[in-house]
């Protein structure tokens, strides 16, 4: 038999095909097959029980860490509650823009499936809210209520101004004419094309800008009450950002630099309703991050991951206990990681040092009472020398215009990531204040990695039902 014939022999061919199937499914997972494989590998999750005696060796250290973090939990929680109250206050418009409007607080829960320009928002009170009502954060315009969720009475769907079929009337106020009462009219909506090497940036598109029209300046909403859009006028005066005109190939591109990170930095919003509605003037959301009923207690079955550079653990709770993929895992006020794969009785924990883990973060900059939405952080792993966490951060808005190059900050979880409640402590970091893609070094409390007893987030709905 020739070597080629041997290789192509039936048994080897089957083996090779099996290998290729494994490789293909590893790199491009198919959900249905993954679920089947979960069942196949389910017994492996019980294997860690065989080595329980090894866990007992570290028990004194684990108990010390748990006691210490538990003692500091109350302090951390009250700090988070204060921070989040400040975040909600910062989401309110300035007094001049509150006139004639009822303000209803909302928290971005997640992006709608299949619609990147639509977010799901949990509001304090949905009474009197309707499609078409403007949504803002601070003095910045965000979008409009697209619909009220049919299944969840606390949710509204919000269409962002970044949507390709979204249009909003606006005025541009030239920098030279600061005192002008009427600006040049433009239509804004959707995203502008990005220049090469700046794909991480995000700018709003201006539709059919005239060559003789505005090229730069402050852009604010000015809607015409046409086509029966009863609530459009409520958005008048809210900012869309700054218009700029930049060279692009042989032409020019006029676009708007927004004040918000629409991609991942939208956490707290306010729905504007007409003042004549019966509700109170301002309705704030209650913070349910630290409601005990929102969490399920689990146990760490392993201490770490045997694959170098990964930071994972096996947890004792699974689907039966109400654990779901992507949920936050915490202890006291500290975030420990997020749930990875989930089996019936066990689940994987992906620690904050596990490369590829994604988080929405909020920063409390030293000396500044108003928290800042940082947007999404992507874990790059843990530095083996100093133990710090490395994250990639795409800053789409400046943190401190004209301030220092770097500022110290305490990082917390933000909103908009399904399964992760806001206000859990991530760690301390030095933040660059400029726009761009940065690598952050986050110092995590070392005791967070020693814990055995952990808590998995079950969702806002559970907390509301408990109340």
């Amino acid at each position: 038999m020739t070597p080629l014939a041997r290789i192509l022999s039936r048994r080897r061919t089957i083996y090779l095909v099996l290998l290729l199937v494994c490789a293909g499914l590893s790199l491009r997972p198919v959900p249905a097959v993954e679920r089947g494989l979960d069942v196949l590998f389910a017994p492996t999750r019980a294997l860690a029980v065989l080595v329980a005696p090894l866990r007992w060796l570290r028990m004194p250290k684990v108990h010390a860490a748990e006691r210490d973090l538990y003692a500091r939990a109350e302090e951390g929680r009250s700090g988070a509650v204060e921070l989040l109250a400040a975040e909600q206050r910062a989401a309110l418009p300035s007094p001049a823009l509150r006139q004639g409007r009822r303000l209803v607080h909302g928290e971005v829960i997640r992006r709608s499936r299949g619609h990147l320009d639509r977010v799901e928002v949990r509001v304090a009170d949905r009474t009197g809210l309707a499609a078409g009502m403007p949504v803002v954060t601070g003095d910045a315009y965000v979008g409009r209520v697209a619909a009220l969720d049919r299944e969840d009475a606390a949710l509204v769907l919000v269409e962002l101004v970044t949507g390709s079929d979204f249009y909003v009337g606006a005025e541009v106020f030239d920098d030279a004419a600061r005192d002008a009462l009427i600006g040049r009219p433009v239509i804004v909506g959707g995203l502008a094309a990005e220049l090469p090497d700046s794909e991480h940036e995000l700018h709003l598109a201006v539709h059919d800008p005239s060559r003789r029209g505005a090229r730069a300046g402050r852009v604010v909403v000015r809607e015409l009450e046409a086509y029966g859009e009863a609530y459009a006028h409520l958005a008048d005066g809210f900012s869309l950002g700054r218009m700029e005109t930049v060279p692009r190939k042989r032409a020019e591109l006029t676009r708007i630099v927004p004040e918000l990170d629409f991609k991942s930095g939208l956490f707290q919003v306010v729905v504007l309703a007409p003042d004549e509605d019966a509700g109170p003037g301002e309705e704030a959301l209650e913070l349910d991050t630290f409601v005990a009923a929102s969490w399920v207690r689990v146990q760490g079955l392993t201490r770490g991951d045997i694959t170098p550079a990964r930071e994972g653990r096996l947890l004792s709770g699974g689907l039966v206990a109400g654990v779901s993929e992507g949920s936050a895992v915490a202890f006291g006020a500290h975030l420990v990681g997020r749930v990875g794969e989930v089996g019936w009785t066990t689940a994987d924990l992906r620690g904050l040092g596990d490369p590829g883990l994604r988080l929405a973060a909020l920063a409390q900059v030293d000396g500044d009472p108003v928290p800042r939405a940082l947007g999404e952080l992507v874990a790059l792993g843990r530095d083996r020398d100093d133990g710090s966490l490395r994250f990639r951060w795409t800053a789409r808005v400046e943190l401190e215009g004209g301030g220092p190059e770097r500022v110290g900050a305490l990082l917390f979880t933000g909103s908009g990531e399904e399964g992760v409640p806001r206000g859990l402590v991530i760690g301390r970091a030095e933040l660059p204040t400029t726009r761009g893609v940065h690598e952050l070094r986050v110092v995590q409390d070392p005791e967070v990695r020693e814990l055995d007893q952990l808590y998995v987030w079950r969702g806002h709905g559970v907390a509301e039902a408990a109340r």
Partner: protein
Amino acid sequence: MILRPRNAAWLIAVVWFVWVHAAQELLGRHEVFGLATPDFGMVLFVGLLGAVKKNDVFPLALLAAVSRKGFSVDPGIAILGGFLALAWLAVLLRELVELTNPLWRAVLTAAGAMGLAFWLELVRYARTGGALPHLDPLLPLAFTSALGALALGGFAIRLPGLTPLRRRQAWS
């Protein structure tokens, strides 16, 4: 019910793999070892690979993958694929090299440990993004795993309960 010695040996092999992986995980958390923690699971796998019958290579890869999955958040299918690839490589190489030779065993263990770690990093990158995997941080792992194979690989088949898995004649 009486367990046949070979079946009992497979069950004992599972226990050995689990304990070896647990010890590896424990060492990996220690500051001294870190990324240079030897892949003892791979040392045991390659050590047994050269000692078992040809027909036992596939079950051995399956067993090594299943026990490793109990200590890793990597997808089971990726771990299985990695061990199957290594077993396939060993079957191909057996006509050229003697896997019971300590040096060749060390070379295959180093390549296996580094290759598996890189493959799992690649799968992680394809699924969740983050940082692109690099080979150079895995060199200490390959080196210490090779040392581990040189020192301990020969004892793999002599571990209590595993001798019924030993082949009596050369692979055909």
